[in-house]
């Protein structure tokens, strides 16, 4: 499937992924958050484009995956929907709920999520802290100092698509265990990585990127005779 890798800039990721998500029907603000999540995942050293493409393809095929309902059951908040939940919508909503003061006393569950890693990335880009995000065979810990730790049984599981049930719980720093660490990013490491990416760009899967660009292209308005005249510079061939 993969034919190669190419460098893209973070600016391109934001521009293309936002409009790709918008192109499959996500509202603009949700689409922006999806792009921020994809950028955050790239800073973990992961190529997030295959997951991003799969996620948008799922949303495109099943528009019902955008429907989230919330139920509060005792100390639990449960997000679910009529079909598999799209990470495009689940990530920002979980991040929002995680910022509410009552989150410290609750556990949030999201059922049947399509791409858990992108949900976790959305929580990172949403600046969540002091919480643990868990799904089968993987765990992401965000602490007070914005240290990010990814624990997983193997790397493929971390990036594997769902559906999975995902749990987020609050965790005060003392209770966070850093055993079995597989990949840990403190603030300085993340800063260094962000600088490296700014200097070098992000290496991504060529096919996945091309797929995202196809979704992006849906946002482009077909050209008409009139719209040609509505662009700057219309009607002038320079012979000055």
């Amino acid at each position: 499937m993969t034919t190669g890798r190419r460098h893209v800039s973070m600016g391109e990721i934001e521009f293309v992924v936002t409009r790709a998500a918008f192109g499959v029907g996500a509202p603009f603000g949700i689409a922006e958050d999806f792009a921020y999540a994809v950028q955050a995942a790239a800073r973990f050293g992961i190529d997030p484009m295959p997951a991003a493409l799969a996620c948008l393809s799922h949303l495109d095929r099943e528009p019902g995956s955008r429907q989230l309902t919330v139920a509060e059951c005792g100390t639990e908040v449960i997000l679910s929907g009529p079909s598999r939940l799209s990470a495009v919508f689940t990530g920002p909503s979980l991040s929002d709920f995680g910022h509410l003061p009552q989150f410290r006393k609750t556990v949030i569950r999201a059922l049947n999520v399509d791409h858990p890693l992108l949900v976790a990335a959305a929580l990172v880009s949403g600046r969540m802290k002091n919480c643990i995000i868990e799904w089968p065979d993987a765990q992401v810990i965000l602490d007070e100092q914005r240290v990010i730790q990814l624990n997983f049984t193997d790397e493929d599981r971390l990036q594997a698509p769902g559906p999975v049930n995902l749990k987020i719980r609050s965790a005060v720093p003392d209770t966070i265990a850093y055993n079995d660490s597989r990949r840990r990013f403190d603030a300085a490491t993340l800063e260094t990585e962000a600088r490296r990416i700014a200097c070098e760009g992000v290496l991504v899967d060529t096919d996945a990127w091309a797929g995202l660009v196809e979704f992006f292209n849906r946002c482009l308005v077909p050209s008409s005779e009139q719209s040609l005249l509505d662009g700057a510079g219309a009607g002038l061939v320079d012979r000055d």
Partner: protein
Amino acid sequence: MVSLRPAEQIMRLDRMGASHQTRLSFMRALVRRMSKERWRFERLRFDLDPDGYGTSIFAIHTPNRTYSLIAFTHALDPDQRTDRVIAEAWDATFSLFDGVPTDADLARLAHNTPKQEVGRFSSTELVLARANKSLRAFEHVVECLADGRQPDIDFLARVGYLMRTTAVYGSGKFGCADRGRISERSDTRGPFQVEMLTVYLIRWFTMELVEYVARARGGNRAAKLDAAVKRFLGIGNATGLGMAPFLVKHPILINNWVLARETALARVRALKLASEEQLSELHKLMRRVRRHLEEWNVDDEIQQARTSTLRNEMEDFERRLSDDGLLSEKRPWDMLYLYAETNYSLEGQELAASLLMEPHAQLVDDLAETMCSDRSTCLKPSMSVAELQASITTRYGWALMRDYDDPDEQRYFWYYSEDKLEPRFSDRFAEPGTEYEMPLAFGRDIAALDMELARAEPSSSVAKFLLVHPEFRHVVRRVQTTANFPYSEIHDSLIASDVRPIDLLRFKLAFFGASKFDPKSDLWTRITMFQGAPMPDDLGGPGSDDWFFPVKPEVTR
């Protein structure tokens, strides 16, 4: 203390469309830095055929590093010479390279730079640009120099440049480096500094090119271009709708630009005394400004009428400066500004503000360092619906007072066309594609958010509101992000039937430091950049920072 001018006065489209360059403009800041830090310029390569087609590398050495302008010049069919984004060929194409390119870099860029948007770039490239010749001006200069004569300065003054850039892309476009690569470097951290540096180098390259072609044609008979003419000639630029999304998308950055300018003006107005020296400098400047205004002639009838009014106002302003009582006034500069505000057109008011800043380098120039921002947007999900609505009521009265059911209130929409992503601005009731409208209509969208918030439980959180209404997410983020930045919003609709996109362009271009605005329609304008700025070998000299509103030199042919 003198208060800053309020946003409801300043951030209106008609006033933004009357903006002028100031000491804080980005070109001025760049030239000051180049002079102060004695940046060195070096022509590393100049492999051209007798017609001037080929490859060149022009390097600039700052105290910290080297940047290289790589230029490819091509023969161009005159029918292909257009300023539009959808153009596919140009007289010259450029990459600004971070460092000195290797042969491999050069081979890669020779393959990609001439293709512009269709090419692919890497993070060692900071800027991608292209330019077209002003064919008549370029040819005239070549012909005269080849014949051992200087060109006709009156003819050149009507154009103002020999080449005109039609796009200057930075910040990660087409694989070029993200801004993060340069945002912490002292020589490039200011807004648009690498883009301005690229344009400055293109100007230098153009002068070398025209002399080279003249020499190739005239041999030993050929003259060099008079230094005063070189300095007078700027580089042209054609700018269209692409600038508008930038202004809306970067509210904090725009706030910082305006805040710096308004702080500078307030500092000057607060001075209790005007010195003889400053007054004399301003007198000298006034004479130049008035001559510049005489030389600023364009076809656009609206701008021509405004310039004509401006000439009269500056004549009056000069008289006010000569008033014997001025020096004994308490806060003389404030008095002059308030006089302009009461009696002049918006162009006159804004030019008066720029003029008053000009002799006050020590009060103003440090503010250039405050004009960048790398702060991102924010969303506060725990805010209550009531708090959010109160914030809207307090700050967005200008948006809430409009009747968006009136078709004229949302006559237009902004979008990217499938033709090379060219930004366009069309009648929403006549053209298809509104579902892919760019999110620039924050006034309308905030009014819609306000109506929906009124139906929500006031004590509920923004998080719960957005779960039900994800379509307002970007609007909520906007309101919350801009809360502490008074100059972050344009207090007008950008989609109403009376919008002139050119006002947005003028505002941004004035911050760049452009002059000789030459609107070609409501959608685009030509301008001149770096006109009057010192050439590389003049940098650091006594007049290095003295090029506000330049005028054509006296030249003997």
